[in-house]
């Protein structure tokens, strides 16, 4: 699968995006407050590298514990897939656990995203990128 972006957990998204701008990243699109997922998202790009800054809205946010343990850190790769349901089925049969089933994501024009975990890889995100 082709890599779409790297997810970067940050505690304070406003402060982090200023620092990413200083090292060559530019904002892509607007800041999204994804209340469905309890996260705030800002996409940024440097050349061909796309990153997704993800900050928790509150302590119930799925990335709150990641930040508490590791502070600001890259924490997932997101991969494009033509069919998210087929790819999930394939990964499930290869010992991936579904963290978050497929649902539309505000930051990606409502396209379906899902999160999975593998004990020897960690967290990955799938994004349905139909041609």
């Amino acid at each position, binding site marked *: 699968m082709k890599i779409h972006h790297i997810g970067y957990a940050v505690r304070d998204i406003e402060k982090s995006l200023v620092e990413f701008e200083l090292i060559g990243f530019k904002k892509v699109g607007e800041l999204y407050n994804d209340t469905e997922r309890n996260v705030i998202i800002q996409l940024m790009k440097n050349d061909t590298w796309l990153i997704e800054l993800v900050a928790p809205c509150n302590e119930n946010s*799925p990335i709150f*514990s*990641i930040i508490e343990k590791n502070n600001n850190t890259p924490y997932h790769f997101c991969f494009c897939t033509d069919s998210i349901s087929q790819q999930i089925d394939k990964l499930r049969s290869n*010992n991936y*656990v*579904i*963290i978050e089933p497929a649902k539309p994501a505000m930051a990606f024009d409502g396209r379906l995203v899902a999160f999975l*975990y*593998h*004990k020897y890889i960690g967290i990955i995100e799938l994004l349905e990128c139909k041609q």
Partner: protein
Amino acid sequence: MLEKEIIDKINKVLKSALKLNNNTLGDYLIKDKFIEWDSLKHITIIADLESEFDVLFEPEEIVEMNSSEKIVEIIRKKL
């Protein structure tokens, strides 16, 4: 598989994930009583249990598996 074997395997996974020793393991472990057993650790425990028992859990089951008692109940149904 015998009930005791199921419980022993589950306890082995939980003890390893939560870094417990035999002395700290009671009859049943409850997620809310362990600060280490957060949402991220929960996913790693689920992955280890799937591997240990060669089963797959549904998302609804993963949410319900918040104590060793509930884990035993769900796994027993799958074996």
